[in-house]
Protein backbone atom coordinates (compact mmCIF):
# COMPACT_ATOMS: atom_id res chain seq x y z
CA UNK A 1 0.00 0.00 0.00
CA UNK A 2 1.33 3.39 -0.98
CA UNK A 3 1.10 6.29 1.42
CA UNK A 4 2.50 9.79 0.97
CA UNK A 5 5.89 10.15 2.57
CA UNK A 6 4.97 13.28 4.52
CA UNK A 7 2.07 11.39 6.14
CA UNK A 8 4.39 8.54 7.01
CA UNK A 9 6.95 10.88 8.54
CA UNK A 10 4.29 12.72 10.55
CA UNK A 11 2.85 9.54 11.99
CA UNK A 12 6.27 8.09 12.65
CA UNK A 13 7.04 11.08 14.88
CA UNK A 14 3.68 10.72 16.62
CA UNK A 15 4.27 7.03 17.20
CA UNK A 16 7.72 7.73 18.61
CA UNK A 17 6.56 10.43 21.01
CA UNK A 18 3.38 8.78 22.24
CA UNK A 19 5.23 5.48 22.56
CA UNK A 20 8.28 6.65 24.45
CA UNK A 21 6.26 8.73 26.94
CA UNK A 22 3.89 5.90 27.87
CA UNK A 23 5.85 2.68 27.27
CA UNK A 24 7.21 2.27 30.80
CA UNK A 25 3.85 2.85 32.52
CA UNK A 26 2.09 0.52 30.11
CA UNK A 27 4.73 -2.16 30.59
CA UNK A 28 3.94 -2.34 34.31
CA UNK A 29 0.19 -2.20 33.70
CA UNK A 30 0.29 -5.03 31.16
CA UNK A 31 2.70 -7.27 33.01
CA UNK A 32 0.71 -6.94 36.25
CA UNK A 33 -2.55 -7.16 34.31
CA UNK A 34 -1.52 -10.50 32.83
CA UNK A 35 -0.93 -11.76 36.38
CA UNK A 36 -4.35 -10.54 37.58
CA UNK A 37 -5.95 -13.10 35.28
CA UNK A 38 -4.86 -15.54 37.96
CA UNK A 39 -5.21 -13.39 41.05
CA UNK A 40 -7.42 -15.93 42.80
CA UNK A 41 -4.94 -18.82 42.48
CA UNK A 42 -2.08 -16.48 43.46
CA UNK A 43 -3.94 -15.39 46.61
CA UNK A 44 -4.97 -18.95 47.35
CA UNK A 45 -1.30 -19.89 47.05
CA UNK A 46 -0.44 -17.24 49.66
CA UNK A 47 -3.17 -17.83 52.25
CA UNK A 48 -2.21 -20.17 55.13
CA UNK A 49 -4.31 -23.31 55.32
CA UNK A 50 -5.65 -22.54 58.80
CA UNK A 51 -6.97 -19.15 57.64
CA UNK A 52 -9.71 -20.89 55.68
CA UNK A 53 -12.34 -22.92 57.51
CA UNK A 54 -13.91 -26.13 56.15
CA UNK A 55 -16.72 -26.04 53.59
CA UNK A 56 -20.25 -26.97 54.68
CA UNK A 57 -23.23 -28.42 52.87
CA UNK A 58 -25.82 -26.00 51.37
CA UNK A 59 -28.38 -26.99 54.01
CA UNK A 60 -26.14 -25.85 56.88
CA UNK A 61 -25.90 -22.17 55.89
CA UNK A 62 -29.12 -21.05 57.61
CA UNK A 63 -28.02 -22.49 60.93
CA UNK A 64 -24.58 -20.98 60.48
CA UNK A 65 -26.03 -17.50 59.91
CA UNK A 66 -28.33 -17.67 62.93
CA UNK A 67 -25.66 -19.01 65.29
CA UNK A 68 -22.91 -16.67 64.10
CA UNK A 69 -25.06 -13.53 64.23
CA UNK A 70 -26.29 -14.51 67.69
CA UNK A 71 -22.75 -14.94 68.95
CA UNK A 72 -20.98 -12.05 67.17
CA UNK A 73 -22.33 -8.51 67.37
CA UNK A 74 -20.23 -7.44 64.35
CA UNK A 75 -21.84 -10.01 62.07
CA UNK A 76 -25.44 -9.00 62.63
CA UNK A 77 -25.21 -5.87 60.49
CA UNK A 78 -23.64 -7.49 57.45
CA UNK A 79 -21.76 -10.59 56.33
CA UNK A 80 -20.95 -12.59 53.23
CA UNK A 81 -21.75 -16.22 52.49
CA UNK A 82 -19.43 -18.04 50.09
CA UNK A 83 -20.55 -21.13 48.24
CA UNK A 84 -18.78 -24.14 46.75
CA UNK A 85 -17.25 -24.75 44.27
CA UNK A 86 -16.10 -21.12 43.92
CA UNK A 87 -15.45 -20.73 47.61
CA UNK A 88 -12.23 -22.78 47.77
CA UNK A 89 -10.87 -21.22 44.56
CA UNK A 90 -11.54 -17.83 46.05
CA UNK A 91 -9.93 -18.96 49.31
CA UNK A 92 -12.93 -18.09 51.49
CA UNK A 93 -14.58 -19.76 54.45
CA UNK A 94 -18.36 -20.34 54.22
CA UNK A 95 -19.15 -17.15 56.16
CA UNK A 96 -17.05 -14.00 56.55
CA UNK A 97 -17.51 -10.49 57.88
CA UNK A 98 -15.33 -7.53 58.65
CA UNK A 99 -14.46 -6.78 62.24
CA UNK A 100 -12.49 -3.78 61.06
CA UNK A 101 -12.51 -2.07 57.69
CA UNK A 102 -14.57 -3.47 54.87
CA UNK A 103 -16.51 -1.33 52.46
CA UNK A 104 -15.62 -0.48 48.91
CA UNK A 105 -12.15 -0.37 47.47
CA UNK A 106 -8.92 -2.03 48.42
CA UNK A 107 -7.86 -1.82 52.05
CA UNK A 108 -4.73 -3.46 53.35
CA UNK A 109 -5.98 -3.43 56.92
CA UNK A 110 -9.26 -5.32 56.76
CA UNK A 111 -9.71 -7.71 59.64
CA UNK A 112 -11.85 -10.56 58.54
CA UNK A 113 -13.71 -12.88 60.87
CA UNK A 114 -14.60 -16.22 59.34
CA UNK A 115 -17.05 -18.81 60.53
CA UNK A 116 -18.04 -22.37 59.73
CA UNK A 117 -19.03 -25.63 61.42
CA UNK A 118 -16.48 -28.25 62.41
CA UNK A 119 -17.04 -31.97 61.94
CA UNK A 120 -19.06 -32.14 65.15
CA UNK A 121 -21.37 -29.44 63.84
CA UNK A 122 -20.13 -26.80 66.31
CA UNK A 123 -19.63 -23.19 65.32
CA UNK A 124 -15.94 -22.39 64.75
CA UNK A 125 -14.42 -19.06 63.83
CA UNK A 126 -11.06 -17.41 63.24
CA UNK A 127 -10.09 -13.78 62.75
CA UNK A 128 -7.12 -12.57 60.75
CA UNK A 129 -5.86 -9.89 58.48
CA UNK A 130 -7.32 -10.53 55.05
CA UNK A 131 -4.62 -11.45 52.55
CA UNK A 132 -4.95 -9.16 49.53
CA UNK A 133 -1.92 -10.23 47.47
CA UNK A 134 -4.05 -10.69 44.34
CA UNK A 135 -5.75 -7.33 44.88
CA UNK A 136 -2.41 -5.61 45.34
CA UNK A 137 -1.24 -7.00 41.99
CA UNK A 138 -4.54 -5.71 40.59
CA UNK A 139 -3.83 -2.31 42.16
CA UNK A 140 -0.38 -2.31 40.53
CA UNK A 141 -2.12 -3.17 37.25
CA UNK A 142 -4.56 -0.26 37.53
CA UNK A 143 -2.13 2.39 38.81
CA UNK A 144 1.29 1.21 37.55
CA UNK A 145 2.33 1.56 41.20
CA UNK A 146 1.79 5.35 41.30
CA UNK A 147 0.55 6.02 44.84
CA UNK A 148 -1.90 8.64 46.09
CA UNK A 149 -5.50 9.70 45.59
CA UNK A 150 -7.14 12.76 44.07
CA UNK A 151 -10.68 13.08 45.41
CA UNK A 152 -11.76 9.45 45.55
CA UNK A 153 -9.88 8.35 42.44
CA UNK A 154 -6.36 6.88 42.40
CA UNK A 155 -3.87 9.26 40.80
CA UNK A 156 -2.29 6.26 39.09
CA UNK A 157 -5.60 5.39 37.42
CA UNK A 158 -5.89 8.91 36.03
CA UNK A 159 -2.28 8.86 34.84
CA UNK A 160 -2.88 5.54 33.09
CA UNK A 161 -6.04 7.03 31.57
CA UNK A 162 -3.99 9.78 29.95
CA UNK A 163 -1.32 7.25 28.97
CA UNK A 164 -4.01 5.11 27.36
CA UNK A 165 -5.30 7.98 25.25
CA UNK A 166 -1.73 8.46 23.99
CA UNK A 167 -1.44 4.70 23.55
CA UNK A 168 -4.56 4.73 21.35
CA UNK A 169 -2.88 7.37 19.17
CA UNK A 170 0.32 5.30 19.19
CA UNK A 171 -1.66 2.31 17.89
CA UNK A 172 -3.30 4.28 15.09
CA UNK A 173 -0.04 5.95 14.07
CA UNK A 174 1.88 2.68 14.31
CA UNK A 175 -0.53 1.01 11.91
CA UNK A 176 -0.42 3.96 9.50
CA UNK A 177 3.30 4.05 9.12
CA UNK A 178 3.55 0.27 9.00
CA UNK A 179 1.03 -0.07 6.16
CA UNK A 180 3.45 0.34 3.22
CA UNK A 181 5.70 -2.49 4.40
CA UNK A 182 3.02 -4.54 6.12
CA UNK A 183 2.34 -7.05 3.38
CA UNK A 184 5.98 -7.61 2.63
CA UNK A 185 7.34 -8.12 6.12
CA UNK A 186 4.34 -9.04 8.26
CA UNK A 187 5.25 -12.55 9.30
CA UNK A 188 8.97 -12.26 8.88
CA UNK A 189 11.02 -12.55 12.02
CA UNK A 190 14.51 -11.83 10.81
CA UNK A 191 16.98 -13.09 13.37
CA UNK A 192 20.10 -12.95 11.27
CA UNK A 193 19.87 -9.32 10.25
CA UNK A 194 20.98 -7.91 13.57
CA UNK A 195 19.29 -7.40 16.90
CA UNK A 196 17.65 -4.19 15.78
CA UNK A 197 15.77 -5.86 12.94
CA UNK A 198 14.77 -8.72 15.22
CA UNK A 199 13.30 -6.31 17.79
CA UNK A 200 11.47 -4.43 15.04
CA UNK A 201 9.95 -7.58 13.58
CA UNK A 202 8.89 -8.78 17.03
CA UNK A 203 7.37 -5.39 17.82
CA UNK A 204 5.41 -5.25 14.54
CA UNK A 205 4.28 -8.86 14.67
CA UNK A 206 2.89 -8.51 18.20
CA UNK A 207 1.40 -5.10 17.51
CA UNK A 208 -0.47 -6.16 14.39
CA UNK A 209 -1.64 -9.60 15.53
CA UNK A 210 -3.03 -8.30 18.82
CA UNK A 211 -4.24 -4.94 17.49
CA UNK A 212 -7.96 -5.46 18.29
CA UNK A 213 -7.05 -6.39 21.87
CA UNK A 214 -4.87 -3.31 22.21
CA UNK A 215 -7.44 -0.92 20.75
CA UNK A 216 -10.03 -2.35 23.13
CA UNK A 217 -7.74 -2.05 26.15
CA UNK A 218 -6.77 1.53 25.29
CA UNK A 219 -10.43 2.50 24.92
CA UNK A 220 -11.67 0.76 28.08
CA UNK A 221 -8.87 2.21 30.23
CA UNK A 222 -9.70 5.74 29.10
CA UNK A 223 -13.33 5.07 30.08
CA UNK A 224 -12.38 3.46 33.42
CA UNK A 225 -10.26 6.49 34.29
CA UNK A 226 -12.55 9.29 33.11
CA UNK A 227 -16.10 7.93 33.36
CA UNK A 228 -17.00 10.45 36.07
CA UNK A 229 -16.00 13.37 33.89
CA UNK A 230 -17.68 11.90 30.82
CA UNK A 231 -20.92 11.41 32.78
CA UNK A 232 -20.52 14.97 33.99
CA UNK A 233 -20.41 16.17 30.40
CA UNK A 234 -23.34 13.95 29.43
CA UNK A 235 -25.48 15.44 32.21
CA UNK A 236 -25.48 18.71 30.23
CA UNK A 237 -26.83 16.84 27.21
CA UNK A 238 -29.43 15.03 29.28
CA UNK A 239 -30.65 18.26 30.83
CA UNK A 240 -33.63 17.58 33.07
CA UNK A 241 -33.85 13.97 31.91
CA UNK A 242 -32.61 11.70 34.75
CA UNK A 243 -29.55 9.68 33.73
CA UNK A 244 -29.99 6.88 36.24
CA UNK A 245 -33.11 5.33 37.72
CA UNK A 246 -33.42 5.49 41.44
CA UNK A 247 -34.94 2.43 43.00
CA UNK A 248 -36.50 3.31 46.30
CA UNK A 249 -37.45 -0.10 47.62
CA UNK A 250 -38.67 -0.96 51.07
CA UNK A 251 -37.72 1.31 53.94
CA UNK A 252 -38.96 -1.02 56.63
CA UNK A 253 -36.51 -2.24 59.27
CA UNK A 254 -36.17 -5.99 59.72
CA UNK A 255 -34.13 -8.17 62.05
CA UNK A 256 -31.61 -10.81 61.04
CA UNK A 257 -33.87 -13.53 62.43
CA UNK A 258 -36.41 -12.67 59.72
CA UNK A 259 -33.99 -13.47 56.89
CA UNK A 260 -35.48 -16.00 54.47
CA UNK A 261 -33.70 -19.35 54.14
CA UNK A 262 -30.73 -19.32 51.77
CA UNK A 263 -32.58 -21.68 49.44
CA UNK A 264 -35.00 -18.84 48.59
CA UNK A 265 -32.14 -16.79 47.10
CA UNK A 266 -31.06 -19.78 45.03
CA UNK A 267 -34.62 -20.12 43.69
CA UNK A 268 -34.78 -16.40 42.90
CA UNK A 269 -31.48 -16.54 41.02
CA UNK A 270 -32.53 -19.69 39.14
CA UNK A 271 -35.67 -17.88 38.00
CA UNK A 272 -33.71 -14.85 36.78
CA UNK A 273 -30.56 -16.34 35.36
CA UNK A 274 -30.37 -19.85 34.07
CA UNK A 275 -26.89 -21.32 33.85
CA UNK A 276 -25.42 -19.22 36.63
CA UNK A 277 -23.98 -20.39 39.96
CA UNK A 278 -24.16 -18.31 43.10
CA UNK A 279 -20.62 -17.44 44.17
CA UNK A 280 -21.52 -15.35 47.20
CA UNK A 281 -24.29 -13.49 48.99
CA UNK A 282 -23.19 -10.21 50.59
CA UNK A 283 -25.60 -8.73 53.12
CA UNK A 284 -25.08 -5.12 54.24
CA UNK A 285 -26.77 -2.73 56.68
CA UNK A 286 -29.21 -5.48 57.61
CA UNK A 287 -30.48 -3.76 60.73
CA UNK A 288 -31.14 -0.43 59.02
CA UNK A 289 -33.75 0.83 56.49
CA UNK A 290 -31.03 0.56 53.81
CA UNK A 291 -30.69 -3.23 54.01
CA UNK A 292 -29.00 -4.54 50.86
CA UNK A 293 -28.02 -7.87 49.35
CA UNK A 294 -25.49 -8.16 46.56
CA UNK A 295 -25.32 -11.54 44.86
CA UNK A 296 -22.29 -12.54 42.83
CA UNK A 297 -23.14 -15.09 40.15
CA UNK A 298 -20.71 -16.82 37.79
CA UNK A 299 -21.78 -18.09 34.38
CA UNK A 300 -19.91 -20.70 32.42
CA UNK A 301 -18.44 -19.00 29.37
CA UNK A 302 -20.60 -15.88 29.68
CA UNK A 303 -19.63 -12.26 29.17
CA UNK A 304 -19.57 -10.91 32.72
CA UNK A 305 -19.61 -7.45 34.19
CA UNK A 306 -16.94 -7.69 36.89
CA UNK A 307 -13.61 -9.47 36.67
CA UNK A 308 -15.08 -12.88 37.49
CA UNK A 309 -18.84 -12.54 38.03
CA UNK A 310 -22.15 -10.83 37.29
CA UNK A 311 -24.04 -8.98 40.02
CA UNK A 312 -27.64 -9.08 41.18
CA UNK A 313 -28.72 -6.57 43.84
CA UNK A 314 -31.89 -7.28 45.76
CA UNK A 315 -33.60 -6.42 49.00
CA UNK A 316 -32.51 -9.16 51.43
CA UNK A 317 -35.94 -9.50 53.07
CA UNK A 318 -38.44 -8.81 50.28
CA UNK A 319 -36.22 -10.21 47.49
CA UNK A 320 -37.16 -7.31 45.21
CA UNK A 321 -34.47 -6.98 42.54
CA UNK A 322 -33.16 -3.42 42.35
CA UNK A 323 -30.38 -3.90 39.83
CA UNK A 324 -28.61 -6.59 37.88
CA UNK A 325 -25.90 -6.92 35.26
CA UNK A 326 -27.54 -9.96 33.65
CA UNK A 327 -28.46 -10.04 29.98
CA UNK A 328 -32.20 -10.04 30.70
CA UNK A 329 -35.03 -8.11 28.96
CA UNK A 330 -35.14 -5.51 31.77
CA UNK A 331 -31.64 -4.40 30.85
CA UNK A 332 -32.60 -3.73 27.24
CA UNK A 333 -30.22 -4.01 24.34
CA UNK A 334 -27.67 -1.59 25.75
CA UNK A 335 -27.06 -3.34 29.08
CA UNK A 336 -25.51 -6.47 27.53
CA UNK A 337 -23.66 -4.36 24.96
CA UNK A 338 -21.98 -2.26 27.63
CA UNK A 339 -21.31 -5.39 29.65
CA UNK A 340 -19.41 -6.86 26.73
CA UNK A 341 -16.95 -3.92 26.83
CA UNK A 342 -16.15 -4.75 30.45
CA UNK A 343 -15.97 -8.47 29.74
CA UNK A 344 -13.62 -7.93 26.82
CA UNK A 345 -11.27 -6.00 29.09
CA UNK A 346 -11.44 -8.57 31.89
CA UNK A 347 -11.24 -11.64 29.65
CA UNK A 348 -13.81 -13.50 31.75
CA UNK A 349 -15.97 -14.97 28.98
CA UNK A 350 -14.22 -18.23 28.18
CA UNK A 351 -13.30 -19.68 31.57
CA UNK A 352 -9.69 -20.70 32.03
CA UNK A 353 -9.00 -20.90 28.29
CA UNK A 354 -9.94 -17.24 28.02
CA UNK A 355 -7.81 -16.37 31.03
CA UNK A 356 -4.77 -18.05 29.49
CA UNK A 357 -5.29 -16.23 26.20
CA UNK A 358 -5.59 -12.91 28.03
CA UNK A 359 -2.54 -13.78 30.11
CA UNK A 360 -0.54 -14.31 26.91
CA UNK A 361 -1.96 -11.17 25.27
CA UNK A 362 -1.02 -9.19 28.37
CA UNK A 363 2.52 -10.54 28.44
CA UNK A 364 2.84 -9.90 24.70
CA UNK A 365 1.70 -6.34 25.39
CA UNK A 366 4.47 -5.94 27.94
CA UNK A 367 6.94 -7.23 25.32
CA UNK A 368 5.49 -4.79 22.79
CA UNK A 369 6.27 -1.81 25.02
CA UNK A 370 9.66 -3.14 26.07
CA UNK A 371 10.76 -3.74 22.46
CA UNK A 372 9.31 -0.34 21.55
CA UNK A 373 11.68 1.28 24.02
CA UNK A 374 14.60 -0.80 22.75
CA UNK A 375 13.85 0.33 19.19
CA UNK A 376 13.80 3.95 20.28
CA UNK A 377 17.18 3.47 21.91
CA UNK A 378 18.65 1.72 18.87
CA UNK A 379 17.44 4.43 16.57
CA UNK A 380 18.79 7.31 18.62
CA UNK A 381 22.11 5.81 19.58
CA UNK A 382 25.25 7.07 17.91
CA UNK A 383 27.54 4.68 16.12
CA UNK A 384 30.19 5.21 18.76
CA UNK A 385 31.04 4.10 22.25
CA UNK A 386 29.95 7.35 23.91
CA UNK A 387 26.19 7.94 23.82
CA UNK A 388 24.10 11.03 24.36
CA UNK A 389 22.56 11.45 27.80
CA UNK A 390 18.95 11.07 26.56
CA UNK A 391 19.83 7.59 25.29
CA UNK A 392 21.68 6.46 28.41
CA UNK A 393 18.99 7.83 30.75
CA UNK A 394 16.19 6.20 28.77
CA UNK A 395 18.12 2.92 28.68
CA UNK A 396 18.56 3.03 32.46
CA UNK A 397 14.89 3.88 32.98
CA UNK A 398 13.78 1.07 30.68
CA UNK A 399 15.85 -1.51 32.53
CA UNK A 400 15.24 -0.12 36.01
CA UNK A 401 11.48 0.37 35.69
CA UNK A 402 10.57 -2.73 33.68
CA UNK A 403 12.86 -5.26 35.32
CA UNK A 404 12.49 -3.50 38.69
CA UNK A 405 8.72 -3.96 38.72
CA UNK A 406 8.98 -7.59 37.61
CA UNK A 407 11.55 -8.23 40.33
CA UNK A 408 9.38 -6.37 42.86
CA UNK A 409 6.37 -8.55 42.20
CA UNK A 410 8.46 -11.73 42.14
CA UNK A 411 10.11 -10.82 45.45
CA UNK A 412 6.75 -10.00 47.10
CA UNK A 413 5.42 -13.40 46.09
CA UNK A 414 8.61 -15.14 47.23
CA UNK A 415 8.58 -13.27 50.54
CA UNK A 416 4.91 -14.06 51.26
CA UNK A 417 5.26 -17.35 53.12
CA UNK A 418 8.40 -16.23 54.94
CA UNK A 419 6.67 -13.02 56.10
CA UNK A 420 3.92 -15.14 57.66
CA UNK A 421 6.53 -17.28 59.45
CA UNK A 422 8.37 -14.24 60.79
CA UNK A 423 5.04 -12.75 61.88
CA UNK A 424 5.15 -9.55 59.82
CA UNK A 425 1.84 -7.82 58.95
CA UNK A 426 1.30 -9.44 55.60
CA UNK A 427 -0.21 -6.75 53.35
CA UNK A 428 2.02 -3.84 54.40
CA UNK A 429 4.83 -6.41 54.06
CA UNK A 430 4.00 -6.97 50.38
CA UNK A 431 3.88 -3.24 49.72
CA UNK A 432 7.19 -2.53 51.46
CA UNK A 433 8.91 -5.38 49.66
CA UNK A 434 7.58 -4.29 46.25
CA UNK A 435 8.47 -0.62 46.54
CA UNK A 436 11.76 -1.37 48.27
CA UNK A 437 12.89 -3.71 45.51
CA UNK A 438 11.56 -1.44 42.75
CA UNK A 439 13.36 1.65 44.04
CA UNK A 440 16.62 -0.19 44.72
CA UNK A 441 16.48 -1.73 41.21
CA UNK A 442 15.95 1.67 39.64
CA UNK A 443 18.78 3.13 41.68
CA UNK A 444 20.99 0.21 40.73
CA UNK A 445 20.25 0.76 37.03
CA UNK A 446 21.30 4.41 37.30
CA UNK A 447 24.39 3.58 39.33
CA UNK A 448 25.67 0.66 37.26
CA UNK A 449 24.27 1.59 33.86
CA UNK A 450 21.75 -0.21 31.69
CA UNK A 451 23.97 -3.01 30.39
CA UNK A 452 25.34 -4.24 33.70
CA UNK A 453 22.11 -3.80 35.65
CA UNK A 454 20.13 -5.67 32.97
CA UNK A 455 22.31 -8.72 33.56
CA UNK A 456 22.12 -8.48 37.33
CA UNK A 457 18.37 -7.81 37.47
CA UNK A 458 17.54 -10.64 35.09
CA UNK A 459 19.69 -12.99 37.17
CA UNK A 460 17.92 -11.84 40.32
CA UNK A 461 14.48 -12.31 38.76
CA UNK A 462 15.44 -15.83 37.69
CA UNK A 463 16.72 -16.65 41.19
CA UNK A 464 13.67 -15.13 42.90
CA UNK A 465 11.25 -17.03 40.67
CA UNK A 466 13.16 -20.23 41.34
CA UNK A 467 12.77 -19.49 45.03
CA UNK A 468 8.97 -19.58 44.81
CA UNK A 469 8.56 -23.33 44.12
CA UNK A 470 11.55 -24.01 46.39
CA UNK A 471 9.72 -22.24 49.23
CA UNK A 472 6.64 -24.32 48.60
CA UNK A 473 8.78 -27.48 48.74
CA UNK A 474 10.62 -26.43 51.89
CA UNK A 475 7.41 -25.50 53.71
CA UNK A 476 5.80 -28.74 52.64
CA UNK A 477 8.71 -30.81 53.91
CA UNK A 478 9.37 -29.05 57.17
CA UNK A 479 7.08 -29.06 60.16
CA UNK A 480 6.54 -25.33 60.39
CA UNK A 481 3.70 -23.96 62.48
CA UNK A 482 1.92 -22.65 59.37
CA UNK A 483 0.94 -24.90 56.48
CA UNK A 484 -0.27 -23.78 53.07
CA UNK A 485 -2.97 -25.10 50.79
CA UNK A 486 -1.72 -27.35 48.02
CA UNK A 487 -4.14 -27.66 45.10
CA UNK A 488 -3.78 -27.87 41.34
CA UNK A 489 -4.34 -24.11 41.11
CA UNK A 490 -1.64 -23.28 43.67
CA UNK A 491 0.80 -25.73 42.04
CA UNK A 492 0.19 -23.84 38.81
CA UNK A 493 1.64 -20.76 40.49
CA UNK A 494 4.78 -22.74 41.38
CA UNK A 495 5.10 -24.20 37.89
CA UNK A 496 4.76 -20.77 36.34
CA UNK A 497 7.35 -19.28 38.67
CA UNK A 498 9.67 -22.04 37.45
CA UNK A 499 8.98 -21.21 33.81
CA UNK A 500 9.63 -17.52 34.48
CA UNK A 501 12.89 -18.47 36.19
CA UNK A 502 14.00 -20.35 33.08
CA UNK A 503 12.94 -17.53 30.71
CA UNK A 504 14.81 -14.86 32.66
CA UNK A 505 17.86 -17.11 33.04
CA UNK A 506 18.00 -17.53 29.25
CA UNK A 507 17.55 -13.80 28.72
CA UNK A 508 20.27 -13.08 31.24
CA UNK A 509 22.70 -15.34 29.36
CA UNK A 510 21.97 -13.55 26.08
CA UNK A 511 22.35 -10.13 27.67
CA UNK A 512 25.64 -11.25 29.18
CA UNK A 513 26.98 -12.32 25.80
CA UNK A 514 25.92 -9.09 24.17
CA UNK A 515 27.56 -7.09 26.95
CA UNK A 516 30.93 -8.79 26.76
CA UNK A 517 31.19 -10.23 23.29
CA UNK A 518 28.76 -8.07 21.33
CA UNK A 519 29.23 -4.95 19.24
CA UNK A 520 31.30 -2.23 20.86
CA UNK A 521 28.98 0.47 19.59
CA UNK A 522 25.97 -1.06 21.28
CA UNK A 523 24.58 0.65 24.35
CA UNK A 524 24.49 -2.82 25.85
CA UNK A 525 28.24 -3.23 25.49
CA UNK A 526 30.17 -3.34 28.74
CA UNK A 527 33.71 -4.40 27.88
CA UNK A 528 35.91 -7.14 26.64
CA UNK A 529 36.44 -10.04 28.99
CA UNK A 530 39.77 -11.83 29.19
CA UNK A 531 38.28 -14.87 27.52
CA UNK A 532 37.49 -12.71 24.52
CA UNK A 533 38.43 -15.41 22.04
CA UNK A 534 34.88 -16.69 22.47
CA UNK A 535 33.69 -13.59 20.73
CA UNK A 536 34.89 -14.92 17.43
CA UNK A 537 33.08 -18.20 17.84
CA UNK A 538 29.61 -17.60 16.61
CA UNK A 539 27.75 -15.01 18.62
CA UNK A 540 27.55 -12.72 15.68
CA UNK A 541 23.78 -12.45 15.77
CA UNK A 542 24.10 -10.10 18.71
CA UNK A 543 26.42 -7.78 16.88
CA UNK A 544 24.55 -4.69 15.86
CA UNK A 545 24.90 -3.79 12.26
Amino acid at each position, binding site marked *: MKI*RSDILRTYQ*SIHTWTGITTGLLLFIAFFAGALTMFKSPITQWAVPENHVLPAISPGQYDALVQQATAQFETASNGFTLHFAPHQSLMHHSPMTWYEQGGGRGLSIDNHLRQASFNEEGELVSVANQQNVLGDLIDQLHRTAGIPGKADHEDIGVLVLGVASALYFIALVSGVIFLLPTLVKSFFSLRQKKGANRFWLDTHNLIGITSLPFHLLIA*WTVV*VFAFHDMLYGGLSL*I*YGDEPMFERNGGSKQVYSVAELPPVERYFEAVRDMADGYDIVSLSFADLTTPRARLSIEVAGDGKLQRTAETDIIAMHPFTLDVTYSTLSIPE*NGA*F*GPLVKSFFALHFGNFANDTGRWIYFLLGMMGAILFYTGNLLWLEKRRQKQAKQSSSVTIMAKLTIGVCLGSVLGVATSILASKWLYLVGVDINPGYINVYYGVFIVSLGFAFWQGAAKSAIALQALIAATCLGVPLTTLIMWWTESEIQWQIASSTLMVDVFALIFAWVFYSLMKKTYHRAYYGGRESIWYVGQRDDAHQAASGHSEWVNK
Partner: protein
Amino acid sequence: MARLSAEEKIQPHWWTKSLAGAVLGLTFAFAVVGIFAWYGPGGIQAPNKVQFNMWMISPVWLLILSFSFLFRTGMRAVLVLSAANLIAWATFLLLRYSL
Protein backbone atom coordinates in the same frame (compact mmCIF):
# COMPACT_ATOMS: atom_id res chain seq x y z
CA MET B 1 2.07 10.48 -7.44
CA ALA B 2 3.26 13.95 -8.33
CA ARG B 3 5.91 15.46 -6.16
CA LEU B 4 4.45 17.76 -3.55
CA SER B 5 5.83 21.21 -3.02
CA ALA B 6 6.85 22.25 0.48
CA GLU B 7 3.56 24.09 1.11
CA GLU B 8 1.47 21.14 -0.04
CA LYS B 9 3.10 18.79 2.43
CA ILE B 10 1.75 18.28 5.91
CA GLN B 11 3.14 20.90 8.27
CA PRO B 12 4.02 19.71 11.78
CA HIS B 13 2.11 22.36 13.83
CA TRP B 14 2.05 19.90 16.73
CA TRP B 15 0.54 22.16 19.34
CA THR B 16 -2.34 23.58 17.32
CA LYS B 17 -3.28 20.22 15.84
CA SER B 18 -3.05 18.40 19.18
CA LEU B 19 -5.11 21.06 20.93
CA ALA B 20 -7.67 21.23 18.12
CA GLY B 21 -8.02 17.44 18.09
CA ALA B 22 -8.17 17.17 21.87
CA VAL B 23 -10.59 20.01 22.60
CA LEU B 24 -12.69 20.34 19.45
CA GLY B 25 -12.61 16.57 18.93
CA LEU B 26 -14.07 16.09 22.39
CA THR B 27 -16.82 18.69 21.99
CA PHE B 28 -17.69 17.18 18.61
CA ALA B 29 -17.85 13.70 20.17
CA PHE B 30 -20.28 15.01 22.81
CA ALA B 31 -22.53 16.51 20.13
CA VAL B 32 -22.61 13.31 18.07
CA VAL B 33 -23.29 11.19 21.15
CA GLY B 34 -25.92 13.73 22.25
CA ILE B 35 -27.81 13.31 18.98
CA PHE B 36 -27.51 9.54 19.31
CA ALA B 37 -28.67 9.69 22.94
CA TRP B 38 -31.88 11.59 22.19
CA TYR B 39 -32.72 10.45 18.67
CA GLY B 40 -30.82 7.19 18.21
CA PRO B 41 -32.37 3.76 18.81
CA GLY B 42 -34.44 3.57 21.99
CA GLY B 43 -34.57 7.32 22.55
CA ILE B 44 -33.36 8.99 25.71
CA GLN B 45 -35.04 6.59 28.13
CA ALA B 46 -33.87 3.17 26.90
CA PRO B 47 -32.53 1.20 29.86
CA ASN B 48 -28.77 1.40 30.37
CA LYS B 49 -28.37 3.56 27.28
CA VAL B 50 -26.68 6.29 29.31
CA GLN B 51 -23.79 3.89 29.95
CA PHE B 52 -23.49 3.07 26.27
CA ASN B 53 -23.51 6.78 25.42
CA MET B 54 -20.73 7.44 27.92
CA TRP B 55 -18.70 4.62 26.38
CA MET B 56 -19.09 6.00 22.87
CA ILE B 57 -17.63 9.45 23.58
CA SER B 58 -14.00 8.40 23.92
CA PRO B 59 -13.65 6.32 20.71
CA VAL B 60 -15.10 9.15 18.60
CA TRP B 61 -12.85 11.64 20.37
CA LEU B 62 -9.69 9.51 20.12
CA LEU B 63 -10.20 8.74 16.42
CA ILE B 64 -10.61 12.44 15.62
CA LEU B 65 -7.56 13.27 17.73
CA SER B 66 -5.54 10.53 16.02
CA PHE B 67 -6.38 11.74 12.52
CA SER B 68 -6.11 15.47 13.30
CA PHE B 69 -2.49 15.33 12.24
CA LEU B 70 -3.56 14.68 8.66
CA PHE B 71 -4.65 18.33 8.34
CA ARG B 72 -2.16 20.24 6.26
CA THR B 73 -1.81 23.03 8.80
CA GLY B 74 -2.83 23.64 12.39
CA MET B 75 -5.12 26.48 11.29
CA ARG B 76 -6.98 24.13 8.95
CA ALA B 77 -7.47 21.65 11.79
CA VAL B 78 -9.00 24.40 13.93
CA LEU B 79 -11.25 25.67 11.12
CA VAL B 80 -12.50 22.29 9.90
CA LEU B 81 -13.11 20.92 13.39
CA SER B 82 -14.84 24.14 14.45
CA ALA B 83 -17.12 23.91 11.44
CA ALA B 84 -17.86 20.26 12.25
CA ASN B 85 -18.70 21.29 15.81
CA LEU B 86 -20.95 24.07 14.61
CA ILE B 87 -22.90 21.72 12.35
CA ALA B 88 -23.14 18.94 14.95
CA TRP B 89 -24.20 21.22 17.80
CA ALA B 90 -26.62 23.17 15.61
CA THR B 91 -28.23 19.89 14.57
CA PHE B 92 -28.46 18.76 18.16
CA LEU B 93 -29.96 22.02 19.43
CA LEU B 94 -32.37 22.30 16.51
CA LEU B 95 -33.64 18.79 17.05
CA ARG B 96 -33.81 19.28 20.76
CA TYR B 97 -35.63 22.61 20.92
CA SER B 98 -37.71 22.78 17.76
CA LEU B 99 -39.15 19.29 17.62
